[in-house]
């Protein structure tokens, strides 16, 4: 479901943000922060770990396949305070044009957007970088200075058919 920006809500948020920004600037913002999060990896046997690094307005996610076999059909779901823009994706060392398979705006929780990107199959590593536009601070990709708690990697499950079907006397 495509989202429609709520202009009036954005105006209200901007009015609230300016004093907040002033306070934050007085304290000072870190240039970058790194988090070693395990997130929600399902199933456990996927052998995929990830970490996330957030700098000013930009979030970079690192996925590492720690297993022997390629990881099939994964997608990443990100839950942010504003619609995201994908900056780049590198999969197994090569640029990858990752499609957005779902984007929705949750009207129950204002300012919440869910974007899901289809990573597909990868053997080694994926680096996904995205940006939350519309505000002067990366705060809106977070909540109260903390990353949104809901961030998951949910493999798209798949099973092949049985093989070597036959009869015996």
């Amino acid at each position, binding site marked *: 479901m495509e989202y429609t920006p709520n202009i009036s809500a954005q105006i209200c948020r901007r009015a609230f943000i300016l004093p907040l920004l002033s306070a934050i600037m007085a304290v000072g913002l870190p240039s970058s922060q790194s988090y070693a999060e395990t997130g929600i990896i399902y199933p456990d046997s996927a052998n995929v770990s990830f970490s996330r690094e957030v700098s000013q307005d930009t979030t970079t996610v690192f996925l590492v396949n720690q297993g022997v076999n390629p990881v099939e059909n994964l997608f990443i779901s990100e839950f942010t305070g504003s619609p995201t823009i994908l900056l780049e994706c590198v999969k197994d060392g090569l640029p990858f044009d990752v499609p957005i398979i779902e984007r929705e705006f949750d009207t129950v929780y204002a300012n919440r957007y869910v974007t899901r990107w289809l990573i597909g199959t990868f053997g080694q590593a994926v680096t996904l970088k995205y940006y939350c536009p519309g505000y002067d601070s990366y705060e809106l990709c977070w909540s109260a200075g903390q990353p949104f708690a809901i961030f998951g990697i949910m493999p798209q*499950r798949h099973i092949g058919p049985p093989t070597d079907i*036959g009869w015996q006397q």
Partner: protein
Amino acid sequence: MKRFLLLIMLCVPTAAFAQFNDHDGQLVSRWHAPAFGAPVDHYIWSYTINGVADSIAGIAAANDTLNNAVSLSVIGNWAIFNIAAVSIFGDTSEAAVSDTAYYNPESGIGPPEGVTWLQGP
């Protein structure tokens, strides 16, 4: 070139002509686990007998890849075995289908056995 292609086409076996002749009408089907994907939880199978789908159906455990579940009583009866894998996450694979099995006892006559020489009168 055309003759070459025709020769190749005649030599390549096709699924349409693949069949299995069962001599006693007791059908035993077998299969192997999927070549890829999530772990198998169980299999769901069925027999199509004489064109009637799901004549017999059942479930097999993940480690059970041999099934003897149908008898054909009339010579010429036939059956097809259908099977799909269900993953531990509840997803079902595409179905795999066997060749057609016919109840076709051995026909014709074999050669005499035990041929020996005896002393003459």
